[in-house]
């Protein structure tokens, strides 16, 4: 712990000039020193965080088949270009003529995303998928309000990601859940029953979180539209669709895209990402401000959109992430992007094939970019999904997403992505198969895993019961400051 290192008075800050706080600031407004704040040297900083980093799993270390997360390779090239001073050192309030390159990049990225998704207009402002959802729902609400009635509900499938219902609530809608049928899809009949004039939108994920492409998507859109509602697509799974099907052709009115998934910006241990929202022409006037517009002489910013939902974030969103996604798209080009989805599908289907028989497959439908297994075959030995996940760690692999989607008991949701080799998929499959064997022959081994990780199973119940959320200075100061503590 950084607070347990160092020595009082130590710092890595070196600034020859010494300045006092100006007397004009009344001392009443000033703080005393910050108790417990770090006091370490520069080498200590480097060592501490380098050491911490080595206690992490990462794509650059090994396979990371987290379903719904699209953990593909994040090209180092994109990291390099995002760090160009002409991007990294821009002030967002600089006059538009001084940031023409940035505006052009954003403008072009908007068109590229529109082309890829088959939509008409895009905002890059949302900071992540969930904020994209909120923005998209707000657009729907604004549109319906303008038509006279914002309506009350949003229909959300039971397979949806948790952000979908949460965003609906935040947008002032009640959530109406719709179940999936035995093929993992929405039953058009059931939808017809639920889709009333109370419902503002259907929020659908396609392929959904089961990795299944809903073949009825066009029919579904027709049902929604017939009742005056709109179709929102959670585009987190765009990695399955490029060059295969465009949401814009499916009858989708609004969607968000996770640049930190399909467009390969690094996850960073939980962000930053970006969640652009794409809409059909009729909804364009509701997009957040400012909009980047092309003029005769270049690009400018339009704040003056009376129907806009307003701002969802300060400035322009996560611009640095947009730069990376832009670099990714122009690197791959049309062919490359199409190859991404095809290969993602190939990898998922290959892995599915290899694991079939060893694990129970939740649905027998063909899968797209991910597939969902369960622990049903292992339960009889007392081995559960969590145990399988932990045991995988001992094999050097990150487990799939577990216990999601919620509709599948004991789900193991595997998304290999297109950047993995056949050899890696084979090695992962072999580890899974070995665990299936262990579950049968030596269940205790699996149930007590992991054994080889920096720490073993952590007491999560205790963490939640008696939350300790920050480091506190120990009573007897100084004693704890020792080398060797991580």
């Amino acid at each position: 712990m950084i607070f347990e290192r160092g020595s009082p008075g130590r710092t890595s800050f070196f600034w020859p000039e010494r300045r006092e706080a100006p007397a004009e600031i009344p001392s009443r407004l000033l703080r005393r020193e910050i108790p417990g704040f770090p006091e370490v040297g520069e080498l200590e900083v480097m060592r501490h965080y380098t050491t911490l980093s080595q206690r992490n799993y990462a794509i650059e270390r090994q396979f990371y088949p987290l379903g719904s997360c699209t953990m593909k390779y994040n090209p180092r090239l994109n990291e390099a270009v995002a760090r160009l001073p002409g991007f990294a050192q821009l002030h967002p309030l600089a006059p538009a003529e001084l940031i023409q390159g940035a505006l052009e990049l954003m403008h072009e990225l908007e068109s590229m995303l529109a082309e890829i998704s088959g939509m008409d207009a895009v905002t890059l402002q949302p900071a992540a998928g969930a904020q994209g959802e909120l923005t998209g729902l707000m657009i729907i609400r604004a549109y319906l309000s303008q038509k006279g009635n914002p309506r009350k509900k949003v229909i959300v499938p039971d397979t949806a990601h948790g952000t979908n219902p949460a965003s609906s609530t935040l947008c002032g809608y009640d959530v109406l859940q719709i179940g999936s049928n035995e093929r993992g899809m929405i039953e058009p009949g059931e939808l017809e029953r639920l889709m009333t004039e109370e419902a503002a939108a259907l929020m659908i994920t396609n392929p959904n979180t089961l990795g299944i492409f809903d073949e009825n998507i066009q029919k579904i859109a027709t049902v929604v539209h017939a009742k005056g509602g709109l179709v929102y697509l959670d585009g987190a799974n765009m990695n399955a669709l490029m060059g295969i099907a465009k949401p814009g052709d499916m009858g989708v009115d609004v969607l968000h895209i996770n640049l930190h998934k399909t467009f390969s910006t690094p996850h960073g241990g939980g962000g930053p990402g970006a969640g652009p929202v794409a809409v059909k022409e009729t909804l364009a006037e509701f997009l957040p401000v400012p909009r980047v517009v092309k003029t005769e002489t270049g690009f400018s910013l339009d704040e003056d959109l009376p129907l806009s939902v307003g701002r969802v974030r300060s400035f322009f969103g996560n611009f640095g992430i947009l730069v990376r996604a832009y670099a990714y798209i122009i690197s791959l080009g049309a062919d490359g992007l199409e190859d991404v989805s095809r290969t993602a599908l190939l990898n998922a289907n290959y892995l599915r094939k290899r694991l079939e028989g060893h694990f129970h497959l939740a649905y027998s439908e063909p899968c797209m970019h991910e597939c969902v297994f369960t622990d049903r075959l292992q339960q009889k030995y007392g081995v559960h999904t969590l145990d399988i996940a932990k045991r995988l760690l001992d094999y050097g692999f990150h487990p799939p997403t577990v216990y999601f989607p919620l509709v599948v008991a004991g789900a193991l949701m595997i998304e290999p992505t297109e950047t993995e080799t056949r050899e890696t998929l084979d090695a992962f499959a072999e580890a899974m198969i070995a665990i299936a064997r262990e579950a049968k022959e030596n269940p205790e081994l699996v149930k007590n895993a992991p054994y080889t990780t920096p720490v073993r199973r952590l007491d999560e119940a205790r963490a939640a019961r008696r939350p300790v959320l920050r480091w506190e200075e120990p009573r007897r100061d100084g004693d704890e400051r020792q080398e060797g503590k991580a």
Partner: protein
Amino acid sequence: MRYTPHTEADRRQMLDAIGLSAIEEVFAHVPEELRARARIRLAEGLSEVQVKKRLSALAARNATPGEWSFFLGAGIYHHFIPSTVDAIISRGEFATSYTPYQPEVSQGTLQAIYEFQTLWCQLTGMEVANAGLYDGASAAAEAVLMARRVQQGRRRIVLSRALHPQYRSVISTYLKNLPGVELIEAGFDETGASDAEALARAVDDRTICVVVGYPNFFGVIEDLAPVQELCSRHGSLLIAVTTEALSLGLLKPPGEWGADIAAGEGQSLGVPMSLGGPGYGFFACRKKFLRSMPGRVVGETVDSEGRRGFVLTLSTREQHIRREKATSNICTNQNLCGLASTVFMATLGKSGLRRLAEINAAVAHETCARLVREAGLTRLFAGPFFNEFVLRVDDLEQRLSRLRADKIIAGLPLARWYPELRDSLLVCVTEMNEREEIEQLVKSLTRR
């Protein structure tokens, strides 16, 4: 193909194993009409060299502090970032890991977040902090939403008009679709602080919370004592919102003023400006609101062998467990920027952070004094400030464009956001503004 490793033989072998003859068969069930129209009409892929060239050309058409003198703040600040920061955050182990759902192999990220939470508690003087939100504006909005949750039955939300205008916009966007909320703005006085009387008029017993900038948009360090007193009289929560996080190295922290929630933008502390994003929102509050907090939280625990370890905790608040009843819809946040800040704070440390804040205040005051004395400009507001201040400048637009010819952006004209503040310029001076730049600024604003 770029980034997809398979050779033709690999593909063939895999298709064979699946029992297919072409990859297209995998998605044959996707309706034909969709497939037929799915081709992407974009250019062909580019080599690394071409991509770098294209991006460098775009980057070259943007003005950076290297060639231009910027005196812009207003929510995004140009500060020193020690080299340790990028060295750490560009490590693949941090940059290419996911949200730490498997704690056994994510102790690096988890401990770093735990340190981050601690640093923010220390900096704000609050009891608990989360792992970060999108940005300062949405963090302010989340603070208001949380206040609404814990103040059931109340409806009014009072925003100081001296709060960052974009933050007010975002709060209003976030709130506008929620039932039973009333958003009211209270003006500022001649010191540039929130107007005490306006606030007193606005706040009543049905007021959920009062949101004040600290320092506010005009750079003014508000005295929070009277606001806090007003809030506690009406049972309203005080939300202190900071856009210039570095100021907390010098100023009395919100927690000591009695604020209930401290939120804001963390970019100042180790994150490049990057046209305003990615940065991150910080969020800290009283412990009693813990289970109403938005966003991710890391807690300390032990492993099966009794060793200290860290896990994501209290996730029953979150969307992936609670779905439509979650405290927020946030999932992916801005973690790597939070790590940058953690490394920044560790590098500067207790004394360094204070010294950097002092330097900022000192150079900003000195510059302000010279602009008043030498350039004959007047300060619009009398209140104490940190590193930003507002000047009245006659013929503002004209003078600004003259300065622009000298590659100086002297500040932000306020009229765009405050129509009542014509000819007013928000000037920000940080440690990154060199002596000569300041000299030049004073000179250019002096000669008429």
